[in-house]
């Protein structure tokens, strides 16, 4: 199955993927509305910087899905290899935050932390393919079979 992988050596630490991710998932047409007009869109990808080391991390869509198995409500599920969240069922208990070994379940600060959010490989927005991969300017995030 195609998954997102990180090419750490190629990451410049520009954080553009975070903006593209948040914008794509904000539901807003205008990037100004998504970020500057009080919307504060939440990215589901997170670029870590430590000196010269930079890399982006988002849901790995693991085979063993520790977050899905830990979810107390059934809000998280794995469908055709994509780990998805049903925000209507999420109560924001953060058991998935406790169990995700990559720190990839994002507390949705936009709604006061009432639910979590996460990468669904852009299957849940109009892009249909990971926008972080498409917009990465240096091939530091790839979507492929390995």
């Amino acid at each position, binding site marked *: 199955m195609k998954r997102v*992988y990180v090419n750490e050596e190629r990451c410049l630490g520009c954080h553009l993927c975070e903006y593209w991710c948040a914008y794509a998932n904000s539901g807003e047409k205008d990037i100004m509305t998504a970020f500057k007009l009080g919307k504060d869109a939440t990215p589901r990808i997170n670029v870590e910087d430590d000196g010269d080391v930079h*890399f982006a991390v988002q849901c790995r869509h693991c085979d063993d899905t520790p977050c899905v198995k*830990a979810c107390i409500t059934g809000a998280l599920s794995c469908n055709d290899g994509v780990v998805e969240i049903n925000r209507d069922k999420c109560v924001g208990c*953060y058991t998935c935050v406790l169990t995700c*070994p990559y720190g990839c379940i994002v507390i949705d600060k936009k709604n006061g932390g009432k639910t979590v959010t996460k990468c669904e490989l852009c299957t849940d927005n109009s892009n249909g393919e990971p926008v972080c991969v498409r917009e990465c300017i240096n091939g530091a995030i790839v979507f492929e079979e*390995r």
Partner: protein
Amino acid sequence: MNYVIIGNSAAAIGAIEGIRAYDKDGSVTLISDEKYFTYSRPLISYWLKNSVTDENMKYRDPDFYEKNNVTTMLGETVTAISANEKTVTTASGKTIAFDKLLCATGSKPFVPKTEGYEKVKNVFTFMKFDDAKAIKEVLTADSKVLIVGAGLIGLKAAEAVHEYTENITVIDLADRILSSILDEDAAKIMQTHISDKGVTFKLGTSVKVFSENSAELQNGETVDFDILIMAVGVRPNTELVSAAGGKVNRGIITDKTQLVDGLKDIYAAGDCTESIDITTGDSKILALLPNAFLQGEVAGKNMAGNLCYYVNAIPMNAIGFFGLHIITAGSYTGDTYVVTDGENYKKLITKDDKLVGFILMGDVDRAGIYTSLIKEHIALSECNFDLLKDKPLMAAFSKIRRNKKLAESH
């Protein structure tokens, strides 16, 4: 193959998913004394405070039993297991044969014997959907609610009840709240936070004697109430397995495949069992939903003939009260590193070059990276521990480990 499952919560559902991963054809019968479609027990407090609907109480999609070809016997109580005959019998007189049986019977509230307890009319426990429904029936804006027990269940009850009335008193014998998961300093922060919402705490004391609408405490105080919620603790439902000849200490004892010690073809999973806590090596009851699900899943896979082990259990909790969140994991004996600003609290506990436990309150972002350090036994000398002290980051891992985690096939 003929599978029978007693129970209908996380461990039972894990078992069904485990069985069906390997056996699409075998017959699965699920027996539960509750009449409900599988629901999430931890959600009863959310339901009581009206933030979860009846429909969203469901732990799986409404077509779960059909999709997994499960025959349900809901509202049916199992009264005995015959290990020799390989049958279970129910209170209504039915006998059901099994090839493989899972006992996922969970736990029940523990109510200590207290003088005058029988005089109290409006008394409840807080574990099942029916408990929350019964409380909702009587709860009004004028209710005076006494909760005995300042643990996870008692405080979740307090949070829910607070949606109706602020007249809430919580009593605990321990001198701090949440004593099973928090240290003294973290407990103080949370206690202040909950007290600020109007909840009154009486700690380090217990009820000496009840009358119909008041409790006289050991410290001499009297608390008036019209609703009493008992949340002192829980006890595992082990009687069926014990009577069938299975080994029981505090909880049911199983091997790593969840097979009950001393029995053949009878498995157990969830809050009725003990697990080995890898941070201490002790066998204990880890009454946590994720643990129950994982045990159930391993049991189901083994019942379906696919050998696998459940070996990586740790105590862990993610819970919030009135918007302040806690994530904890592991054990708390070792060297400690603490940072707090009076609202957020972080404690990391290390031992023999390993992270063995942590307490996070307030800022809990990416806590699972800490959990992975514990569960994967990663040596801290291999990591940048200074980074980890600041916050959980993948950057703290060695480049080799990071590449393995982020760039290799998984």
